[in-house]
């Protein structure tokens, strides 16, 4: 019974982290699906989202507004606006001029952008980690009072619900809306979509904006969950999310969701049963194994090489 409760606890923790990975992974997977590049600066956009939401929360507290739903929604909207603008600007400045050149060139430009953004926040906000206030406290507990208890905190529930809502909106947006349809068309064949009158530049910008907005949501959620943020915390999270995207099959949105959840569970199982220090080793090891044995990922389509 004890063991089962412990296992369930790890599962819950894993799913919590995993669902936020999935949110970030969508940004990678959509961009890769359309222009075939790894947006290395995406982790930094997520980090900027976390900073902006913290700034908004502190600002509201200073103004004396403490009604929790309002604070959360305002913080979320601020973070989404700033991150989306950042995503748009990054694409415009660093990626559009190098689009269509040799594969390595956009990638190196993206690495440069990632270093730039990291140091931008570092210079503006300092390198120390800053505590995120505990906005949502408490939770449910299961199990006997004198032994191990499985707990689900309210913040974990918030994360689940928010992620679920975001994913549903995204799925509806992609399948129903005009821009969503254009996105799918562009990801299938950019040149053809262009010929058929779709403003591909605009769609590519839209992809970056959508990805950045979801990353900002993840920034707020993970900031609250971990309780502190610093300018470097986007880098590792970005790598993890990219791993998740590859795991699920890059270019596929349901794949990113699945990959995020699997990765989160694998990580929390490692820290629960082995040691927390090796969880990064396990996730990168998982990435290498996936790429070796199924390079298309779990839900990805095989890529046909045209000569």
């Amino acid at each position, binding site marked *: 019974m004890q063991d089962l409760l412990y296992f369930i606890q790890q599962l819950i923790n894993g799913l919590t982290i995993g669902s936020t990975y999935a949110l970030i992974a969508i940004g990678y997977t959509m961009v890769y699906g359309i222009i075939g*590049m*790894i947006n290395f600066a995406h982790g930094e956009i997520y980090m*900027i989202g976390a900073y*902006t939401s*913290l*700034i*908004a929360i*502190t*600002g509201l507290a*200073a103004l004396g507004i403490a009604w929790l739903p309002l604070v959360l929604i305002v913080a979320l909207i601020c973070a989404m606006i*700033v991150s989306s*603008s*950042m995503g748009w*600007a990054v694409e415009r*400045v*660093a990626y559009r*001029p*190098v689009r269509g*050149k*040799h*594969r*390595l*060139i*956009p*990638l*190196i*430009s993206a*690495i*440069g952008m990632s*270093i*730039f953004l*990291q*140091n*931008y926040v*570092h*210079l*503006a*906000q*300092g390198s*120390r980690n*800053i*505590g*995120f*206030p505990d906005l949502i406290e408490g939770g449910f507990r299961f199990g006997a009072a004198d032994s191990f208890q499985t707990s689900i905190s309210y913040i974990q529930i918030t994360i689940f619900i928010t992620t679920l809502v975001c994913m549903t909106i995204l799925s509806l947006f992609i399948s129903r809306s005009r821009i969503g349809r254009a996105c799918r068309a562009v990801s299938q064949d950019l040149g053809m979509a262009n010929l058929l009158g779709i403003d591909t530049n605009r769609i590519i910008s839209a992809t970056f904006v959508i990805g950045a907005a979801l990353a900002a949501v993840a920034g707020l959620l993970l900031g609250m969950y971990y309780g502190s943020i610093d300018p470097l915390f986007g*880098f590792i999270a970005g*790598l993890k999310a*990219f791993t998740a995207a*590859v795991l699920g099959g890059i270019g596929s949105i349901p794949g990113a969701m699945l990959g995020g959840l699997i990765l989160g569970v694998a990580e929390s199982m490692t820290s629960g049963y082995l*040691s927390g*220090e*090796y969880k*990064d*080793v396990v996730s*990168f*090891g998982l*990435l*290498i194994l996936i*790429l070796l044995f199924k*390079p298309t990922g779990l839900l990805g389509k095989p890529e046909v090489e045209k*000569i």
Partner: protein
Amino acid sequence: MAAHNLKHALFCAIVTLVISYPILGFNLESQGTSVILEGAKTSTVIGVLLAAVIVFLFQLFRDNVMGSLRQLPAVNPLANRKPMEQSRRLKLESALLTLMVIGALIWPFIASRGAVDLATLVLIYIMLALGLNVVVGLAGLLDLGYVAFYAVGAYTFALLSQYYGVSFWFALPIGALLAALFGLVLGFPVLRLRGDYLAIVTLGFGEIIRILLNNMTSLTGGPNGIGGIPDPTLFGMEFGRRVKEEGNTSFHETFGIAYSSEHKVIFLYLIALVLAVITAIAIRRLMRMPVGRAWEALREDEIAAKSLGLSRTAVKLSAFTIGAFFAGFAGTVFASKQGFISPESFVFLESAIILAIVVLGGMGSQMGVILAAIAVTILPELAREFSEYRMLIFGAAMVLMMVWRPQGLMPMRRIHIELKPQE
């Protein structure tokens, strides 16, 4: 047209404000357990507003500005210059290289101790960049975990000297070979992957090595690192004031000169110089050998190279292994120079810096890479008052370089035969 421009300019200005004002205009300050918000200095706010205005004006008059820029006649006097003749260029290049090596030989005897120390670091970066140049520049394989091989070289020497008392000269080939072995073992499975997947896998590998070094505390000392790494000896002569190991003599006593701590620094510098020259020459020869041609062929067109009978795995693997080998070389020198190593020195940023050197210099071009390594290492030292902004400028430079001059400062020129028109 004007209305459209105005709308676009306004949008760009607003975006500039949105992405800069919240982050720059408010500072989060920790006070005990709580966080408070402070407004930034007025100068920062004015700077942000000014940036938005500049973006607005530039976007508004974009067509005019770009148009008049294009019409400026021959701003660049080199634009119409004919490329130098191949034989002359080669001669000039080798003359320049010889001059650089001679200058580098004289350097330690005229410069201060700090300058020699810095020059040693420059040479280490030259070795690393030349090694990575084989992988990225010649073979076209983007390796973002190059620093892992550097770490393998450094830790090999540190561990061997700590546990078995192995000296620098023994550890040098062992470190390099072990790094090459790591390259081979990692490369074997992953080189089947396409370009950007390869980049991520190597990045993951680099992180795994660093995390392992950090966590295997009993073996590597974890984050505390390993200290007391011995200095290299010259035919059994040590450079310390007192001889540490039995059977060795000390350098200053043998030659009957006064002890000076500078001897050691200069000696290390000369070792690094010799190794850097060996690296440069070895790679230069390799480039002209069939394997070097195969690297480039594979980079240019994989399918065509395969159809001509090149084994993709073997060619890529050779580039990867040779690149790792030279990283191991550099790592051993680095460990011996610092006397202390910890996983802190082998973070992803280090890989990014080496990559930036290769890109800045011009992928594949040895001369360019050497000059870029010198520039990237020395410029931050010269501009110490900007040290805060160092990485910011560095990141921006990488992006700008890719946008404006992706082929690098001194792009590689292949040796070729020119056909003269028939008379």
